[in-house]
């Protein structure tokens, strides 16, 4: 033990994850070497666990907590400061309103005149709009996945050659349009069925490097598990177990980050690679325990 011991306040802050990552690292290293601080940490953990178990019922009740109120107030504030507010304020000025209404009348009259002069164009516009609506549906679902690895299927999303020919006579040639729609649905379902995970903040932060074999598969598993866990984390975990889960996850993420840096610095460092893989496995174990609990709870309903 070389460093001096930490007081209970710092230990508690460490436990609550309130410290900067550098300080967390220093304390973690110190605690692993110092028996006195390890005892302090254990005591603090016990106290926290006791407090959480005592307050668990309070946490689980439907009475809005201070945190919830803060969230509500924040979102009200955000609502107030919405994008449209300054526009409405601008439009309320009499001169602006008059100018805007003049433009509106002009646009409407031009549109009416053009519609009268070119009747078939109306049909084309209407049907085109229908198909335009269809395409974004597929692409919207794909955009999430395309970011990771569905990119090769993206070009097939645009069947531009057939599009114009079919759209004009949509009402008459439904059969011709259907295959286009069907192909889009197929692409959509393929994208959904391909087990490529949706990008999550975690997955975005941690990207695979070429140095560690099999890292990509770890990341994919972690991303899909994270998605599953985040969906029902609040319902699945009690206050105390949520606390433990978040703490363990933070520690594991920190380890992954540092080991990745280490591997990037020295790609021949096999020890760092192994610790990195072990940390990935620990994260998977951590996430899968929550996902399994989810599954069990669902099966018992």
């Amino acid at each position, binding site marked *: 033990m070389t460093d001096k011991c930490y007081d209970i306040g710092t230990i508690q802050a460490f436990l609550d994850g309130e410290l900067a990552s550098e300080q967390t*690292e220093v304390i*973690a*290293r110190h605690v*692993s*070497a110092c028996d006195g601080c390890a005892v302090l940490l254990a005591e603090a953990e016990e106290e926290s666990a006791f407090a959480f178990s005592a307050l668990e019922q309070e946490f689980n009740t439907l009475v809005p907590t201070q945190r919830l109120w803060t969230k509500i107030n924040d979102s009200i504030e955000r609502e107030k400061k919405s994008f449209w507010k300054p526009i409405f304020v601008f439009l309320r000025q009499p001169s602006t309103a008059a100018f805007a209404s003049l433009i509106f009348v002009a646009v409407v009259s031009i549109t009416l005149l053009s519609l009268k002069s070119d009747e078939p164009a109306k049909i084309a516009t209407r049907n085109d709009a229908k198909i335009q609506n269809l395409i974004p549906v597929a692409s919207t679902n794909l955009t999430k996945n395309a970011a990771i690895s569905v990119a090769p299927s993206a070009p097939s999303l645009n069947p531009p050659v057939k599009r114009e020919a079919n759209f004009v006579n949509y009402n008459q040639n439904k059969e011709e349009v259907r295959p286009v729609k069907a192909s889009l649905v197929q692409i959509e379902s393929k994208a959904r069925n391909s087990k490529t995970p949706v990008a999550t903040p975690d997955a975005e932060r941690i990207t695979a490097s070429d140095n560690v074999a099999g890292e990509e598969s770890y990341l994919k598993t972690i991303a899909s598990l994270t998605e599953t866990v985040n969906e029902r984390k609040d319902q699945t975990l*009690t206050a*105390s*177990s949520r606390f*433990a*889960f978040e*703490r*363990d996850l933070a*520690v*594991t993420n920190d*380890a992954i980050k*540092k*080991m990745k840096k*280490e591997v990037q610095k*020295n790609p021949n*460092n*096999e*020890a*760092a690679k*192994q*610790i990195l893989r*072990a*940390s990935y*496995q*620990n994260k998977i*174990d*951590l996430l899968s*325990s*929550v996902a*399994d*609990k989810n599954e*069990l*709870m669902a*099966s*018992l309903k």
Partner: protein
Amino acid sequence: MTFRNTITRKISLTVFSLLCLAPFSFISAQIVEIKPKVVVAPAGQTVRVKRKNKKVVGGRETFAEKSIAVDAKVNISLCVSEGNLKITGWERNEIRAFVANGSKINLKVQQKSRQTNNPVWVMVTGSDPTDEKELSSEECLSGEEIELDVPRGAIVNVKGRTTETKIESVRKVDVKNIGGDISLNNIEQGIKAATYEGDVMVENSGGAITLETANGNIVAFDVAPSEIGDIFKTKTTSGAITLERIEHRQLEIGSNSGSIKFVGAFNGGGQYDFRTQNGTILLLIPEKSSCKINALYGFGKFNSEIKLNILTENNISRSQRLIASIGGGDANVNLTTYSGAIQIKKQ
């Protein structure tokens, strides 16, 4: 005369007051008469003793009991929503289920043996005790005490919500609880046990063993494989793992923030993996062990009471590594931690 009158009046008053007090004496006599019945069971039968201070459903205690003759190697599936579950293996080829102050019991035969026509797969389900209809729904059992006596050769599958589970003397167990401790004893041919809020304890058992808990401890002792290649796996996220006298040749032990303690000897040719994120790994082994240690400890530290023959040592900051042997180096022991300590001590 006056004296006589006075005496007569006093006597009549006494008689009157005695008559008035008579009903009360009768009531008190009734109370005195209420005594617990002594049940004398015939030899060889279990006596169920009613416990005091029990929760009572609808103003009275309720008991449900059912039994069915089954095959010696029957599969039993059940789910428990709440209550203390106790499953015990016995010498009879019969399942007997008992629920105190809880649901009704339904023993549903899923499959019968072609040879003996005895049930080989039975589902134990429950239903609302106030429901007077036929038992048809496949609900979970619930009650204050749930007890099952099953053949020793039975395989038991349990799913539970919040259940304290105790299983003894059966062939194989697969138990999964959302919450509650799991205690397993004398399971012959394999265990799969998982709870998400509780401890898991295993003793005197054999076979392939997988133990998991999220926020709880794992304790296992006197455990051995029943077949070659049986693996012993344990996993906890924030609990401690304590293992004593584990005879398996392949161990995979992982804890995230909890510590791992292994007490016993390593088997020659065995593969032992111990992994933590920031928990301590403590090995209490005989001084004359024979194993090869491969320790990785990022920010952690390594310490051994037993003399090591160091083969490789790499003290690069954040990724420290040590490869060493003790004795002939027969077993492979992998120890990985990110910021925990690794300690090897003499047993």
